[in-house]
């Protein structure tokens, strides 16, 4: 004892000293370092680069011949000027912004749209019904948009180069001779309707415009003006107007000698070259709001910006200048990333920018998180790839080689960590849903719903329908921006299946159960494998337009000039048009009257088109999805209501209006060149045409939404039937007991029937099964008690109860097997039927006459034959089946493919529900039968205390234990 004490004392002192030393070292170390290693504070300064362009050196501006512009007075050549240091040829040939689909034409690629009028996948060659003008092809009967006019119109969204310099055969446009019969060397004269020759040598072409994206204040208005005037060669120079480098007067362009130093280089103050800012991107991609002190207002609703209704702003919606319903409560930023100071190029970076570059997922070794090998910064600046990282949006065929190059949400955010513990089945949700589905719950700006080119409004524009905006569609050119004049209500995007990376989803075999019961909307469904497909939010834009077959057998959209002739005589509607359309006979055509709602109206326009020489004019309609991926909401503003999707009215099946009407009854078709899978069906309702998505089409089972009514009805009726049955039985018993005078036929004896383990086992089962039934019902039918149906709590309770039940069942199985108590549950074949009939007779007859139980409970033989067979089925069939289906449903989040092989949730969930109904019915019968003891509550008391008073019929002695 003393030994031990002295040892521990010594050890104690030693350990104390040792730990003090260690602690002292650890604690003191930073101070030692602080005193010796850190330079005096005042010396810590960082040399800062001057404001403006941090390091771009001054440079001379050269013309296309390489001559200094001051000397030649000619337009600036960006290729020559910037090409002094940068590989401008490389840049021009590695940029989809430049290419715009020209290379599809050069390489004779088949466009993915499958439309007869498309020749490429890009804006140069793929007809966009929102812009309407069609880029005519060589050999077309009628000239619509020539290359030159494409530059004047769509070219305002094009940075130059590519189709603005090179012909569809790969020559320089300036090498082509003017020729009115060829769309590359002609232009449509709007007044005469005739093709005129276009002289490229006079107009010049548009080089890649470096200034537009790389200076802080490019003069885009002047650039657009030059393009519209056809002064292509000067377009890039025009971008410099206002910087003091170049001026324009009535007699032409003048380079300012004061902007240049004696060495011919621009003076430092004029060199403002920078990385593209949000403002640069905004020049073409829609309004980007950058000044937090000014309220954000979206005034433009042009097709470039209004396809989705995204507003690029970090400002709180409540602070913006728009007229939005319930604005004061929307205190979230328009886009959380914009608020956090991300700029466009942070995500949409140049693919070889060493600061951001990474490998496409599919090319990356899966073991590698970060590859530190980087392109030298100098090499990058010399030859920067101008293809920019992009996601896998619905604008699918655009720049296909770059799709999926952008970092996705989960490449920056640890989504699993954030959602685990908050979102039940986080894994499952994250593998099925795109982040945007919950994090962009609603858009608060108007978006285009439909463009109907089958009619022309009095100002010769199409009938345009916007969603998310109250009141009539605005007319172009109004004084007040429609977003201020009209109440913006915002819209909820539709959710569709997006197929990531590879091809279209494969079709699997039909779900046998659904086929059997015949409740599926389709016999087939597509797979929903983790990682590959996501449910993502979209805007759908529907367009209707006239097409015709030209003299060379080509199907082309009717030219706007022809369409105008079909509707108008000069500036007024043609007389026969007015006669047919003017419903109220006021001699005017109001927008309400301008709808092709009858066959006669359609035929009239078709006739008028045919009269213009257009063969087979008819109406086509298309539905195109546009990905919603900006205007991301942060936590607290994302969709957090489980019942938004898990409900009878699931958000995932929420229909989206395609148009308030269907012109001439032409149902539009879903475009093919997209990675969005059209699911569900189009539904004509009173207020228009809707797309009703159906997640069943891609095999998604949504708890709380999906169910097989037959099973629920069967289960429910069984449940009610049992309740009615036992109620009737009870009533008869009470009635019989009242008529019976004598109380007991035998003596009463108290027997110890149930061991503590058995009782605990029973009640644990009872509790967990009860919890499972209640939570299961609420999960299955959240619409019954919406107040209680919060999956965030129901699901963990259900799963934990199930785990307890499984644990409890396994342990008891072990107990029953090892102790042999299992025997009690196994019906003995000998005499079983006789005994069973005896028991049935008792319940249907004897019990009313006060007869004793035919089989009294004794320890070791507590169950009567009916109970035996019931429990045999319950414990050996139903319980294991329920556990198995439940376990597999739970396992769906971890092994989706394996579960899919055995039928997936669509098979498992209905079985699980059916068995649950059987269980519920059993519980009713079971509880009722406990009242058949000596007194109604005696059996329950027995199961609680273990001791039960039972009636021993006269003549029978006490049981042998």
């Amino acid at each position, binding site marked *: 004892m003393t030994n031990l004490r002295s040892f521990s004392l010594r050890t104690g002192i030693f350990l104390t000293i040792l730990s003090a030393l260690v602690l002292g070292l650890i604690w003191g170390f*930073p*101070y030692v*370092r*602080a005193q010796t290693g*850190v330079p005096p*504070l005042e010396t*810590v300064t*960082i040399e*800062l680069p001057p404001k403006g362009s941090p390091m771009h050196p001054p440079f001379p501006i050269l013309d296309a011949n390489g001559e200094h512009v001051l000397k030649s007075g000619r337009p600036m050549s960006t290729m020559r000027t910037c090409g002094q240091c940068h590989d401008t040829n490389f840049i021009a040939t590695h940029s989809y912004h430049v290419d715009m689909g020209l290379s599809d034409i050069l390489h004779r690629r088949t466009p993915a749209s499958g439309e007869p009028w498309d020749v490429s996948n890009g804006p140069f060659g793929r007809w966009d019904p929102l812009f309407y003008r069609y880029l005519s092809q060589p050999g077309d009967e009628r000239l619509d948009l020539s290359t030159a006019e494409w530059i004047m119109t769509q070219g305002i969204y094009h940075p130059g180069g590519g189709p603005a310099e090179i012909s569809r055969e790969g020559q320089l446009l300036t090498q082509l001779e003017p020729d009115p019969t060829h769309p590359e060397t002609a232009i449509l004269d709007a007044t005469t309707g005739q093709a005129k020759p276009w002289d490229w040598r006079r107009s010049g072409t548009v080089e890649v415009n470096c200034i537009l994206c790389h200076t802080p204040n490019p003069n885009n208005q002047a650039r657009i003006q030059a393009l519209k005037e056809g002064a292509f060669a000067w377009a890039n120079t025009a971008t410099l107007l206002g910087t003091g480098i170049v001026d324009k007067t009535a007699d032409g362009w003048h380079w300012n000698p004061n902007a240049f130093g004696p060495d011919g280089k621009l003076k430092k103050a004029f060199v403002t070259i920078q990385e593209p*800012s949000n403002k640069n991107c905004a020049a073409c991609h829609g309004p980007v709001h*950058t*000044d*937090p*002190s000014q309220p954000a207002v979206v005034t433009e609703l042009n097709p470039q910006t209004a396809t989705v209704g995204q507003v690029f702003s*970090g*400002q*709180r919606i*409540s602070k913006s200048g728009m007229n939005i319903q319930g604005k004061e409560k929307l*205190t979230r*930023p328009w886009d959380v990333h*914009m*608020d*956090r*100071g991300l700029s466009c190029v942070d995500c949409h970076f140049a693919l070889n920018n060493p600061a951001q570059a990474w490998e496409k997922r599919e090319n990356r070794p899966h073991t590698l998180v970060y590859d530190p090998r980087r392109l030298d910064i100098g090499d990058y600046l010399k030859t920067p790839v101008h293809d920019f990282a992009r996601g896998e949006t619905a604008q699918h065929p655009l720049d296909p080689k770059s799709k999926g190059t952008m970092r996705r949400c989960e490449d920056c955010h640890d989504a699993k960590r954030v959602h685990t*513990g*908050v979102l039940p089945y986080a894994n499952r949700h994250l593998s099925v849903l795109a982040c945007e589905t919950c994090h962009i719950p609603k858009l608060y700006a108007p978006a285009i719903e439909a463009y109907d080119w089958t009619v022309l409004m009095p100002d010769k524009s199409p009938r345009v329908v916007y969603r998310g905006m109250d009141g009539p569609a605005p007319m172009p050119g109004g004084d007040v921006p429609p977003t201020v004049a009209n109440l913006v209500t915002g819209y909820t995007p539709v959710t569709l299946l997006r197929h990531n990376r590879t091809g279209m989803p494969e079709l699997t075999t039909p779900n046998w159960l659904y086929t059997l019961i015949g409740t599926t909307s389709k016999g087939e469904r597509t797979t929903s494998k983790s990682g590959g497909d996501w449910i993502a939010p979209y805007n759908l834009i529907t367009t209707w337009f006239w097409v015709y077959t030209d003299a060379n057998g080509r199907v082309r959209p009717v030219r706007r000039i022809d369409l105008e002739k079909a509707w108008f005589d000069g500036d007024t509607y043609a007389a026969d048009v007015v006669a047919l359309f003017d419903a109220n006979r006021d001699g005017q055509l109001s927008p309400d009257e301008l709808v092709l709602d009858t066959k006669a109206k359609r035929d009239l326009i078709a006739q008028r088109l045919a009269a213009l020489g257009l063969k087979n004019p008819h109406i086509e309609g298309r539905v195109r999805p546009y990905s919603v991926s900006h205007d991301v909401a942060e*936590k*607290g503003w994302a969709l957090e209501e489980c019942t938004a999707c898990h409900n009878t009215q699931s958000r995932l099946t929420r229909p989206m209006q395609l148009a308030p009407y269907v012109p001439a009854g032409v149902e539009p078709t879903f475009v093919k060149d997209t990675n969005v899978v059209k699911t569900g069906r189009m539904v004509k309702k009173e207020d228009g045409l809707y797309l009703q998505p159906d997640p069943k089409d891609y095999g998604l089972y949504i708890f709380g939404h999906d169910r097989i009514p037959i099973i629920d009805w069967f289960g429910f009726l069984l449940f009610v039937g049992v309740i009615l049955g036992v109620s009737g039985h009870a009533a008869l018993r009470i009635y019989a007991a009242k008529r019976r005078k004598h109380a007991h036929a035998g003596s009463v004896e108290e027997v*110890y029937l149930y061991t*503590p383990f058995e*009782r*605990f086992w029973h*009640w*644990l089962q009872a*509790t*967990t099964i009860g*919890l499972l039934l209640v939570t299961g019902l609420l999960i299955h039918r959240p619409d019954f008690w919406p107040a209680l149906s919060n999956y*965030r*709590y129901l699901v*963990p*309770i259900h*799963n*934990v*109860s199930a*785990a*307890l039940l499984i644990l409890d069942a396994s342990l008891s199985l072990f107990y029953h097997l090892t102790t042999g108590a299992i025997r009690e549950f196994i019906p003995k074949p000998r005499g079983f039927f006789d005994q069973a009939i005896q028991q049935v007779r008792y319940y249907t007859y004897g019990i009313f006459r006060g007869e004793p139980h035919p089989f009294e409970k004794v320890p070791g033989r507590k169950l009567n034959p009916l109970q035996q067979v019931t429990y045999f089925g319950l414990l050996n069939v139903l319980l294991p089946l329920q556990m198995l289906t439940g376990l597999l449903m739970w396992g769906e989040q971890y092994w989706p493919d394996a579960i899919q092989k055995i039928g997936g949730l669509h098979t498992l969930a209905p079985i699980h529900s059916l068995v649950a109904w059987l269980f519920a019915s059993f519980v009713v019968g079971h509880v009722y039968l406990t009242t058949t003891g000596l007194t109604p509550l005696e059996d329950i008391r027995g199961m*609680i*205390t*273990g*001791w039960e008073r039972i009636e021993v019929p006269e003549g029978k002695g006490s049981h042998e234990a």
Partner: protein
Amino acid sequence: MKRRHLWVFGAVLLLLVVIVPIAYSLPRERPPDDPQRYLQRHPVPLNHSNLIQGPFKTPQDVTKECLRCHPDAAKEVMQTTHWTWEGKPVKVPWRDEPVTIGKKNQINNFCISIMGNQHTCTTCHAGYGWSEDKPFDFSNPYNVDCLACHADMSVYAKGFSGLPAKGVDLLAAAKSVHNPKRENCGKCHFNGGGGNNVKHGDLDQSLLLPPPELDVHMGRLDFQCTDCHRTQHHRIKGRLLADNYTIPYEEQVHCTDCHSQRPHEDDRLNFHTKSVACQTCHIPEMAPKDPTKIFWDWSKAGQDRPEDHYTYLKIKGEFIYKRHVKPVYRWFNGNNKYRYILGDRIDPTKPTIIDEPAGKITDPTAKIFPFKIHVAIQPYDKEYKYLLAPITSGPGGFWHDFDWDKAFRLAEPITGLKYSGKYGWTETWMFWPTTHMVRPAKEALQCEDCHGPKGRLDWKALGYPGDPKEWGGRFQLNLVPEGEK
């Protein structure tokens, strides 16, 4: 016999077995910051209307009556600057002798100085009878004005020399006493500098009935001043910058008196609290309702021009008032770097900063803090090169005779500052910390308000190499000595 009640234990065990794992698996929300918990409860005020009988001939009689039951109250008040208008002597590096700083003996760049002008200025003194024409007995407890802070402001007001205004019913005022309310404090502090919101920018009469968007504490939660400016023995906590040199940490009011150090759900925001004061984001602008004075040109006073409270007054000169004033931002550790002491020499060609906040990027206790800067053109002695304190409201002062020379000569014996006979005009700045009118969270600044091309912070002026969003914060850049992080 048979352990009949064993089943009770069984039932408990059963419930535990079921409830514990379920409770463990349920989603847990982050426990919310509960600042209410730290609020001090005010003693329930006793209704004095039946206790006080009067009659009172003089205001001092009222104080006498108060002291009958609160014998220590006057002594306590007399220890505070509300009474002395002068701090304790402090040593400042640019002076050999310790100096005291206060309204009593120093100047500001609004009405400049009380010296010789007490009759008017002491309207806001917590005492009775302080005037320039006779010495004031600072040791007489009966001169303490209890009513200024405790009477209902609908029945009490102060006039010249701090005496009750004409027509005040002293008995009614004395019967009305209660815990100080915003009306009491605001009577002086909302009107500092000679009018509503002239001085502070964040304290004005809109706080008497503030809407929730104006001030989350006083508006939504109906705070009184003393909820934050906790008071013990009449020592009211909280002072900053003006008329101070250094201020002990514990004498300042901090948001963290009630709020957590990491109050945001978002870590990115919580990382800010080491370098950015709460006020910086949560008070995006001053004077949201009533305009505040940001510029005062004394040199234009005395001219016969059309007068207007907000632009020109003959007695005071030219002003600029502004609403929605965006603060300026400086590093601030709660102390002054410099406080102009009467007689300090100035460089009249440059703005003189009368009270300069202390703190720099390398100081781990300093945070970026919002300030109002009040710019003034005020007189200085061309020969002695120090700021002058004129007699304005006092007898023969500028407000009566519009004669600057006379105003300075009359002041000479009172201030003890020699006047050479040659005066000029120089620019001065005063910093006023912006710390009231905390807006609801939805009105707070957003990231892009500071970070990004249009951000309101001048990062380089603050000592950063550039926007910390890209360059990293001061701790990441090792701008703060290690070990002090």
